[in-house]
């Protein structure tokens, strides 16, 4: 399989980045060091190439209804320039993907949306939208613009200053999850106060061919997917394909700790099943934990109770650069989910003491 390359692939290589395959894309994983990049985002600012994320554009008379029936959150709450986190679920309420839905300015008088599915899932999302549109007889245009749009994230406490200085328009009045078009270096960018690092910052969407201009407009630490992973984990954010996976680890939003994305009154696909789950409660849920003993938890390691019985699995784990502690996420039966509960994680054959913690692991915006 040929890997897709982000528009700045060569530029990143020249800068000395190391690359990794992620969702069918050859992406920079590390520019300098994960700790250096991580610290820059927590203390100052960093810039990420996230052009591997999908971009699906939806407009037309029934665009709102199509979005409402295929995403879990309530899109009718979105004014132009608003966005929301949501999940895409199947009939059983199992998460297929998570996404951010942006409401763009109306096009031809019709409500218009852009949603951002995970890397490598854009084609499936596009097919799902087209299939349901046709089945339901809705009038909406659905375009997969993943190859047309690049995306960068500028994140960190100093990120708003940097974006404000780079843009022709003032963007710092935007609240969290608000967005507007702003011009940076003559390029019109959809400039959204969103991100997945736990810090303040912006995500910019703009034409693929303009990537060098936009990347070059910011003088801050370039960051790769390695730092993105440690940052999102400290913030307690789940990663598709790792903390839930439609094939290998099917989970409902309630199990995955993102039940806040579910607006049951909106009658989306999977909503009846999720209403029942909400009513009955879940058997297992994702918890954050900290390792008390020395070691680093990794995806796939067993979680046991203090008697050594396997009760769950680590889905994400790392040494937190901010806390200098080993942290992770994993699914355990609800009776083990209370913060303070003692667990064990089997690290390369040895049981290490762990404690359930509240997430996020650090204070975030």
């Amino acid at each position, binding site marked *: 399989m040929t890997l897709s390359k982000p528009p700045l692939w060569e530029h990143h290589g020249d800068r000395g980045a190391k690359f990794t395959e992620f969702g069918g894309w050859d992406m920079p*994983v590390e520019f300098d060091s*994960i*700790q250096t990049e991580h610290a820059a985002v927590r203390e100052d600012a960093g810039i990420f190439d996230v052009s591997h994320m999908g971009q699906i554009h939806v407009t037309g008379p029934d665009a709102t209804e199509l979005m409402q029936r295929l995403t879990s959150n309530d899109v009718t709450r979105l004014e132009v320039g608003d966005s929301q986190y949501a999940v895409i679920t199947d009939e059983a309420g199992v998460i297929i993907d998570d996404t951010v839905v942006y409401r763009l300015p109306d096009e031809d008088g019709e409500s218009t949306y852009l949603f951002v599915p995970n890397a490598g899932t854009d084609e499936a999302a596009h097919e799902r939208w087209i299939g349901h549109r046709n089945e339901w007889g809705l009038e909406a245009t659905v375009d997969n613009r993943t190859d047309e749009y690049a995306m960068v994230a500028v994140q960190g406490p100093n990120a708003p200053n940097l974006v404000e200085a780079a843009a022709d328009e003032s963007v710092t009045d935007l609240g969290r999850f608000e967005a507007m078009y702003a011009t940076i270096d003559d390029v019109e960018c959809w400039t959204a106060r969103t991100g997945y690092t736990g810090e303040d910052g912006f995500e910019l969407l703009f034409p693929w061919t303009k990537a060098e201009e936009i990347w070059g407009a910011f003088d801050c630490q370039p960051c790769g997917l*390695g730092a993105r992973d440690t940052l999102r984990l400290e913030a307690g954010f789940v990663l598709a394909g790792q903390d839930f996976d439609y094939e290998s680890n099917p989970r409902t939003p309630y199990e995955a700790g993102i039940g806040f994305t579910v607006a049951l009154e909106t009658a989306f696909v999977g909503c009846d099943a999720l209403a029942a789950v909400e009513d009955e409660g879940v058997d297992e849920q994702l918890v954050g934990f900290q390792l008390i003993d020395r070691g680093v938890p990794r995806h796939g390691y067993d979680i046991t109770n203090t008697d050594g019985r396997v009760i769950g699995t680590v889905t994400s784990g790392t*040494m937190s650069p901010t806390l200098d502690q080993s942290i992770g996420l994993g699914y355990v039966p609800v009776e083990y989910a209370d913060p303070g509960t003692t667990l064990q994680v089997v690290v*390369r054959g040895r049981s290490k003491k762990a404690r359930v913690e509240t997430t996020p692991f650090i204070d975030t915006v």
Partner: protein
Amino acid sequence: MSFDIPDDRQYMESHEWALEDDGVVRVGITDFAQDELGDVVFVELPDEGDALEQETEFGVIESIKAVSDLYAPVSGEVVSINEELFDAPELVNDDPFGDGWMLEIDADNADELEELLSAAEYEDQIA
């Protein structure tokens, strides 16, 4: 990118180096290996007195992004470990051939060192 490969020692294909002095072999990992791993956050080493066999696992090194086994370049008894690495694992990144050393083995048979790679051979391997 070029990496330091001092020619005063031998190398393993698995990226450990071995520096012999009067029958005692000091062991660490190479500059190339520490760069591949990235930020080292944890090193697990054997106890002093443990007996090691050549090419068998003696410990574990973990960076933020990866975990790797460490292999003994020679058979023998562990006579010293670098306990500083428990508190400062980043020494492996900062000075892999010096302060980032891991352990010293009293070699049973120093001839085993001849089975390892020279600096030039190791350089070819990572080229």
